[in-house]
């Protein structure tokens, strides 16, 4: 069976696409003959969009309308610290979306992050289609292992917008290991040190003939080659202030020139001992005379600039080895992934740390896409029977009394997995409980990533502690989280597939898919239309390779589209789970304020009751969507401040509309008895 499922490494700086067929893996080249394509999107004045290396070349001329390194922002909440940091260094405008998500404002239009990434994915899809001569509709897309569920979901949405079904969201280091072990019949334990443009991951894996087992993975989603560039930029900008009294950081054009030169200098130090940093006429002084930057930068300059960042990666390595219960001596190999690992200072530090020479026969820029392609083939081709045993990179937690979050599935647990914990009510005659699901390693709920929440009611009102609600958490082989609550007495159930997260509701996503913003992408080999000709450099100036796409311009463009085409109407509520999450989550992050929405000061809590009888074992495995939906919808409506809203009335509904909805969260002075492993919830039952 000819299979056109490709593997795409959607990188912070560069992306790469590969295909595995007939036991061979091929990296597909773009129209310029390059294996990697810059993950940069330039928005033209006429509404057209340019993606790739030509867009990257455009940054210098038009930093305000050229968007790069957006992977750092995808799937994040606007109020997260990471977004704040990005705001400080990005020349494009970052604004808050309707769901506390991040939007980019370019040319008076808001772009969600999945839309921007979709532009890059669409370009990769087109490269693959040009090379294969056939349509491509399925892909395995890689993400940093340390991405949380929200970031993964947003990446999946980006695929949907680009017309690609994401067969799987695969972790980058895992993909690298798949490529490394592919067809070699190895039995090894390896570490994958993956330092990308914006993220760092370390994974420890056991590679077998037909089984790839991930033992642990740890990382930092805001540490990468971009930070190295920033250090060089800081050095140059600080020196410039000292020498000339001019702050280059406030001038987007000068800042962009600095960025480009810093990146170039860094890369050339992979080859050379020293490099000349020269930016002619970077800015005009107060006297009207142009000023330039001209200095030498040596390898040792660079290493002293970034050594602390490298040490930070090694600390994460410690953690990963510890989680895998290993030491460096247990490792048969170390695989380096990501452009920044080409830097001698990084290689040396890694070699010293792992006490061995890293594998040389792996191309750090292509290995991830190759692994993704191998996995895409494994998931679509029935003749392939290698199995990937992946893990969950973060703790999965449930919100409990006192604003805390209790671990239900620990990070680095293999998948698929299902865990059930039993909870009880905190107050007499408690009507409902709210179940909040978090991902992260923090004890306090709000310090973690919120994946979603739902309200569970309809159980019989009892004295506190007498209700037993079994909450089942499932993470399937796809890494997708499902949560089900069940009351064994009444048989009442509610479930949710945790999918709000990308910042786009389902209806919004549908809208975007219909409008197909990626249709506006011009092939980067195509000459720009007259409107942007002045702003865009001729790609052939900067890039080697054929100036024209082999398929010709006619096929690759649908021409400019009016500016307002992307304007999204007000979000139409369709009572979908995601929508309701969205409306609910719009109050998330405002501290305890969200409690007031409940219209009730009777704060209640869940209490862990761990003595699950073995008889409960099977009752949670099946999710009864049909039954759960009404309860679920009702719960969320109520949570959104509209206790009588929602049309899916059930008998449990009428019940709970009489009595205000209770909340799971506790007042601070109430003591929590969660996680008593002797199963005692005694203090609370009295």
């Amino acid at each position, binding site marked *: 069976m000819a299979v056109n499922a490709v593997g795409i490494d959607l990188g912070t700086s560069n992306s790469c696409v590969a295909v595995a067929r007939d036991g061979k893996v091929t990296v597909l080249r773009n129209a310029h003959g390059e294996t990697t394509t810059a993950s940069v999107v330039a928005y033209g004045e006429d509404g057209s969009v340019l993606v790739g290396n030509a867009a990257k070349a455009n940054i210098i001329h038009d930093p305000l309308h050229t968007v790069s390194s957006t992977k750092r922002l995808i799937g994040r909440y606007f109020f997260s610290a990471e977004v704040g940091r990005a705001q400080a260094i990005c020349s494009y405008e970052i604004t808050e979306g309707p769901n506390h998500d991040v939007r980019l404002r370019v040319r008076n239009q808001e772009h969600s992050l999945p839309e921007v990434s979709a532009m890059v994915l669409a370009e990769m899809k087109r490269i693959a289609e040009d090379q294969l001569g056939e349509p491509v509709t399925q892909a395995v897309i890689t993400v940093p292992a340390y991405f949380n569920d929200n970031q993964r979901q947003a990446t999946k949405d980006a695929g949907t917008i680009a017309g690609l079904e994401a067969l799987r969201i695969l972790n980058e280091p895992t993909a690298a290991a798949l490529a490394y072990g592919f067809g070699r019949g190895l039995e090894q334990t390896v570490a994958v040190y993956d330092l990308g443009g914006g993220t760092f991951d370390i994974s420890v894996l056991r590679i077998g003939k037909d089984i790839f087992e991930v033992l642990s993975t740890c990382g930092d989603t805001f540490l990468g080659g971009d930070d190295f560039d920033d250090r060089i930029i800081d050095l140059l900008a600080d020196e410039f202030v000292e020498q000339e009294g001019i702050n280059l950081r406030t001038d987007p054009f000068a800042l962009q020139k600095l960025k480009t030169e810093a990146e170039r200098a860094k890369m050339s130090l992979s080859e050379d001992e020293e490099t000349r940093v020269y930016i002619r006429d970077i800015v005009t002084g107060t006297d009207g005379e142009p000023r330039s930057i001209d200095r030498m930068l040596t390898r040792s300059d660079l290493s002293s600039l970034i050594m602390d960042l490298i040490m930070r990666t090694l600390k994460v390595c410690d953690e990963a*080895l510890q989680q895998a219960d290993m030491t460096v001596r247990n490792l048969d190999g170390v695989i380096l992934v990501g452009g920044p690992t080409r830097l001698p200072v990084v290689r040396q530090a890694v070699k010293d740390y792992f006490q061995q020479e890293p594998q040389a026969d792996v191309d750090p820029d292509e290995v991830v896409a190759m692994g993704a392609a191998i996995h895409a083939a494994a998931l679509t081709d029935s003749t392939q*029977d290698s*199995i990937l045993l992946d893990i969950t990179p973060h703790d999965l937690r449930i919100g409990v009394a006192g604003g805390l979050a209790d671990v239900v599935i620990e990070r680095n647990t293999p998948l698929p*997995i299902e865990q059930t914990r039993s909870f009880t009510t905190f107050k007499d005659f408690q009507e409902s409980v709210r179940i909040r699901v978090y991902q992260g390693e923090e004890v306090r709920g709000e310090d973690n990533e919120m994946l979603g929440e739902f309200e569970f009611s309809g159980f019989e009102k009892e004295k506190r502690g007498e209700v037993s609600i079994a909450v089942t958490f499932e993470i*399937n082989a796809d890494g997708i989280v499902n949560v089900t609550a069940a009351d064994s007495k009444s048989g009442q159930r509610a479930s949710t597939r945790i999918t709000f997260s990308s910042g786009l509701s389902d209806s919004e996503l549908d809208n975007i898919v219909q409008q197909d913003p990626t249709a506006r992408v011009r092939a980067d080999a195509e000459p720009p239309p007259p409107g942007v000709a002045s702003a865009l450099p001729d790609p052939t100036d900067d890039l080697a390779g054929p100036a024209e796409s082999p398929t010709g311009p006619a096929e690759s463009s649908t021409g400019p589209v009016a500016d307002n085409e992307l304007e999204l109407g007000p979000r139409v509520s369709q009572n979908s789970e995601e929508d309701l999450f969205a409306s609910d989550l719009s109050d998330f992050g405002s501290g305890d304020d969200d409690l007031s929405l409940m219209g009730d000061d009777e704060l209640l809590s869940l209490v862990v009751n*761990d003595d699950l009888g073995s*008889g409960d074992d099977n009752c949670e495995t099946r999710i009864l969507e049909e039954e759960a939906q009404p309860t679920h919808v009702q719960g969320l409506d109520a949570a959104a401040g509209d206790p009588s809203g929602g049309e899916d009335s059930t008998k449990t509904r009428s019940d709970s509309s009489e009595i205000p909805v209770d909340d799971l969260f506790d007042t601070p002075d109430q003591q929590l008895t969660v*996680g008593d*492993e002797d199963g005692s919830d005694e203090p609370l039952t009295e």
Partner: protein
Amino acid sequence: MSSQLPIEIKALARIIGELDYYQLLHLERDATANQVREAFYEGSRAFHPDANRQLDPETLADCNAVSKRMTEGYCVLRNPRKRRAYDVKLAEEGGVRLQLAEAKAAERSGDNDERRAKTPQGRQFQDKAADALRQSDWATARNHLQMALTFEPKNAFIKEQLAEIAEKIEAEWKAAR
């Protein structure tokens, strides 16, 4: 064990609530850590959802249920302290499952356990020794414990264990004579 028939998958899914992890993974109670892993791999080849994509949704759901339980069993049995807690639970007929959060707590309570090695290397040798002890392989256990002791010179428990093993070896030696 690979390529299960749907009927077998369904049958296993039906009785899964009664099987303990050893039964589910076809393991002896004294299985070593390596044997636990191999059994989990074998189970995954047969029941991992990715290996069974061709099945109808209902059978695939059963398959998934089996796979999830096998993962849980692997998580418990591969970790010596979680495994100990599970063995106790089985002996007390407290059910065939040990929720991972409970297992974690059992493991954590061991953190204050003076007997447990503190360094990763020490722990590794201690775990290997535990495997050997389970198989009554005293000589191997002694070697591993001696290695563990080089990393954990102050660990009194390891010293005690070594003394016990020395007695056992001597007893066997005498018996052999």
